């Protein structure tokens, strides 16, 4: 009874809080402060056609590095938790999946993989980027795991790709301190022609690394769960 009363009070308080926010809400028609600067100067300063990318990778690059680190830590934690059980479990032989699924895999796997790679290579031109492309790559790996339950993807290879790309990401960031304006500054390389594939300095390189890292990380996480 008391518990219900507390729950009711909490609900009412939340309702009051949200009512205040919702009733005073007016849509902004102008950008404020720093976002105004990003919109006006971003394209010229960093040369990326997709403004979101230049904010995510360069202006707020440190946050992205933090996000990548968070993902790394959670993947590492999950595999640490899952490791203990594996020793006691014998390797199960699971029934092969049907002919249809296997045939679909051999047709769709390269296409999904290519799409993921396309998303992170074109991160500075079109919507999407390292995280999105990496997740698509991981879903291709997941499809492989589901369609061929008895084959596994080399864990060592995934680990090597992951740690190498993470390391290179930080190295590129430090290069920005030495050669350009600061940590993760993309103007280490030339900005190139606006809107072409080889443009926007380090942004495509960093996004390729992030994509590889996220893809291999999620892939190895799913692999750990499956084992």
């Amino acid at each position, binding site marked *: 009874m008391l518990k219900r009363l507390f729950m009711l009070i909490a609900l009412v308080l939340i309702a009051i809080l949200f009512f205040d926010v919702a009733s005073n809400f007016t849509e902004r028609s102008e950008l404020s402060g720093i976002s105004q600067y990003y919109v006006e100067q971003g394209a010229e300063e960093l040369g990326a056609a997709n403004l*979101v990318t230049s904010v995510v990778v360069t202006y707020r690059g440190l946050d992205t590095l933090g996000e990548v680190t968070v993902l790394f830590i959670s993947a590492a934690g999950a595999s640490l938790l*899952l490791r203990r*059980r594996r020793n*006691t*479990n014998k390797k*199960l032989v*699971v029934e092969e999946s049907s002919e249809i699924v296997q045939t679909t895999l051999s047709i769709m796997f390269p296409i999904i993989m290519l799409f993921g790679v396309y*998303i992170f290579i074109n991160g500075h031109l079109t*919507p*999407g*980027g390292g*995280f*999105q492309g990496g*997740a*698509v790559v*991981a*879903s291709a790996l*997941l499809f492989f795991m589901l369609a061929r339950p008895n084959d596994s993807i080399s864990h060592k290879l995934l680990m090597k790709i992951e740690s190498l790309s993470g390391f290179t990401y930080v190295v590129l960031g430090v290069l920005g301190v030495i050669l350009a304006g600061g940590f993760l500054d993309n103007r280490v390389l030339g900005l190139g022609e606006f809107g072409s594939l080889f443009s926007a300095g380090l942004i495509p390189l960093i996004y390729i690394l992030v994509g590889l890292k996220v893809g291999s990380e*999620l892939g190895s*996480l*799913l692999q750990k*769960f*499956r084992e």
Partner: protein
Amino acid sequence: MLTFLTLLLCIGILISALLATYLRSMVAAIVSAGLAGLFASVTYVILAAPDVAMTEAAIGSGITTVVFLFALSKTRSKPGSKAND
């Protein structure tokens, strides 16, 4: 029209989120939670945030659902038995 569609999607998010908490079957609840993510990602596309929509669709409704399903099958199977439902 667009506002109506957005509202409809938001109602969809709410209903599937509620279903995720109230459904008895674990698998159905997980799928329902994934459905909420899918509705959310369509909403993001309508609200002109394609970058967020891609992340939500791939991670929120795709990989998270699968991770939950894997975790469910792991916690259900008892050590020593080969049952895997």
